[in-house]
């Protein structure tokens, strides 16, 4: 009992999110049980959230350092466009992509992500541009490259073998995309909780100067973090490619704000130095559940979802404000 209490006290944010999720699930159970609680629905949810879920993981890491990554959509689109071009190339005349090339594509995806992330990281760590501007510029730049590559049109004429595979469900049950997300989430969790990286990241986010005076390789940490974020976004781009079966310079532009929304909702402090991956993952799932739930009500425009997201974000902050204020008064 005391253990639970203690856990609650150190993670009030997490429990509040959990409460909102449970309430929402209850509400859906009462109002639209047969439409919401179907296997198919949950499967769709699980297949859809990985693309922005992956990007959110990257944004989370950057925000923990006190920075932000606004370039995730640019990285994702660039990745998906380059992949589409690469797939066409690899398939050659036959137009059929052999499964043997899949690993090559995955490696290319990771490299693109790492390079883009490293570029942002260099601008932040070495040139000392405020992260919000650096990644904003990089996003614009990458989007520009996408426009130049595609001329603004959608690329859909590419061999679909790999994207179909990614869009499939294993044994008709488990979405492949969910697996990719879980794999990345576990990796990030491992880095944060099982290696010294997590502690160092949060301390770096608290004060870069103190971190340097404590012998931390701050520049390398920052670059590494933005690289990881780039890799997350690149994987998100691959997921987008498989969802839309096409690539375009301006897909997923809503994700820039959405990922930040998720990360803040998940309890990561925009000033850095505070946050937990569990909260962010819960926030990712919660947002998708909210969206999917709203869609079960025919008479409610699906556009209300953005109203609800914004409302939930501000509500979460106000709740933190109210409880935080109490603590400081005590």
């Amino acid at each position, binding site marked *: 009992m005391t253990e639970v209490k203690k856990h609650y006290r150190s993670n009030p944010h997490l429990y509040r999110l959990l409460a909102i999720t449970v309430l929402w699930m209850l509400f859906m159970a009462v109002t639209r049980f047969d439409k919401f609680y179907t296997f198919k629905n949950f499967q769709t949810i699980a297949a859809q959230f990985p693309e922005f879920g992956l990007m959110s993981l990257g944004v989370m890491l950057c925000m923990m350092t006190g920075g932000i990554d606004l370039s995730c959509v640019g990285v994702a689109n660039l990745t998906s466009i380059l992949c589409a071009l690469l797939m066409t190339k690899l398939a050659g005349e036959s137009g059929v992509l052999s499964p043997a090339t899949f690993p090559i594509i995955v490696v290319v995806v990771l490299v693109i992500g790492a390079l883009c992330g490293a570029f942002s990281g260099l601008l932040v760590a070495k040139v000392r541009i405020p992260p919000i501007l650096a990644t904003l510029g990089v996003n614009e730049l990458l989007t520009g490259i996408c426009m130049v590559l595609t001329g603004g049109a959608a690329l859909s004429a590419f061999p679909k073998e790999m994207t179909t595979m990614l869009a499939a469900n294993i044994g008709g049950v488990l979405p492949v995309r969910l697996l990719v997300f879980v794999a990345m989430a576990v990796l990030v969790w491992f880095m944060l*909780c*099982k*290696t*010294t990286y*997590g*502690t*160092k990241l*949060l*301390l770096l986010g*608290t*004060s870069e*100067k*103190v*971190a*340097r*005076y*404590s*012998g*931390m*390789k701050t520049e390398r940490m920052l670059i590494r973090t933005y690289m990881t974020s780039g890799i997350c976004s690149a994987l998100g781009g691959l997921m987008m490619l498989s969802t839309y079966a096409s690539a375009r310079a301006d897909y997923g532009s809503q994700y820039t704000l959405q990922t930040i929304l998720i990360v803040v909702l998940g309890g990561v402090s925009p000033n850095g*130095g*505070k946050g937990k991956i569990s909260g962010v993952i819960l926030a990712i799932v919660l947002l998708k559940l909210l969206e999917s739930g709203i869609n079960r009500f025919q008479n409610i425009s699906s556009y209300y979802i953005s109203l609800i997201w914004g409302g939930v974000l501000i509500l979460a902050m106000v709740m933190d404000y109210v409880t935080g204020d109490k603590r400081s*008064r*005590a």
Partner: protein
Amino acid sequence: MAQALLKATDIQKSFAGVQALKNVSLEIMPGEIHCLAGENGCGKSTLIKIISGVYQRDGGTLEFDGKTMDKFTPIDAITNGIQVIYQDFSVFPNLTVMENLAFNTELAAKRRIVSKKRMRQIAEEAVAKINFQVDLDALVGTLSVAEKQMVAISRALMFNAKLIIMDEPTTALTKKEVQALFDIILKLKEQGIAILFVSHKLDEVFEISERFTIFRSGELVVTGSTKDLDDKKFTFYMTGREFNDKTFVAENLTEQPILETRNLTLDGHFQDISLKLYGGEILGITGLLDSGRTELALSLFGIRPATGGAILRNGQEISIKTPQDAMKQKIGLVPEDRLSEGLFLPQSIADNIIIAEIEQLKTPMGIFDRKKRQEEVDHWVKEMALATPDANNASSTLSGGNQQRIVLAKWLACHPEVLILSGPTVGVDIGSKHDIHAILQQLARKTGMGIIIISDDLPEVLENCSRVLILKDGRIVHEAPTQEIDEKTIVSYMM
């Protein structure tokens, strides 16, 4: 005897059930320089905030200038002639001196439209009062700390101030600047303005104040004339303990210097510094704020790598370009500014302790070893006698003295052979100061560690170091064993 300017009687204040002030009283005469002293957390800041209207008192009476002050705001306090100069001076670095000086007056007059002419007039009058020469159009951010303080003082004088409260005004000043400040305080006294000078620096209390009041744990310990006060009594009143100061004598020095520099230079900061540090000794380095002493420490630790000369470790020439290089050479640095360089304030005490040695807390597989971490944390909390119920609490919950012990623990956990401390006891209460000195002396004596203390707190240097180097304008101007030199001589070399 004249009527008291400020008469606070039996003031009480509690925060969430904790009594911060228990029936304390304070009396200040017109034109008097009164020193309020006490360790961190003794309640002196709370009392200042009550006097200046920031907090409401729970009990007691407050009279100012013959008027009873009940339920008043900071603005009321200002209009009655009470001004507080806080440690950060409350200035705007991005605005001009003129604007900084004129804002309060203009806002108090509820003006809405800016008039540069009127502002300049106000500003000129303000600086004239203390004969302060400054470019009114310069941005305050480009001024030195002392000049910023002058801006704050000039501003305070504009409201027909009768009482000026200065909250630890000398913390970031050099000796020379402190002297200039004292001159101004005396000038203000001549104009009939009373000064409440908050400090826990002994020598300042003696030099400037006529009367003093000392608080301890929210209670009034003693109040009286400074003439009747001496070192021993002061320390006893502050801490409730008695200390016997003994000058440190180095024993078992290593034959070879463990750290040596030859003509070490950092362009624009220091030149041709050649020094030797032996294992088991405590070497003092002193000098004015801009003598290059801070930068020397930073160069030895790789934060600002030296641009010329050589560093030798146990006779071997080494290169220190980054803090990691220094740490590899088992050199640690307790930096000058604890709050912005030494501690992750909002983070846990535990993380602050282990951050520098974190790479050593891994299993062979590279996994973060939580058990080892906990052992280290427990060890250092006990070793340093940190006053905390839980090492997972934020470091900001501790007092300055305890915070400094965390920084010390962080480096001791790395088992350094050379430990450099820049201003090791700035902003630390007397009790903790003595404890920290004892720890350092014991380290040098027992472990053969070579310690460098960089400080302008001369009693500290004389008491703890076996040798002292004096820096001036980036060069070593004198070196002497501490037994053969006194404060006056050191100051004469520093200036």
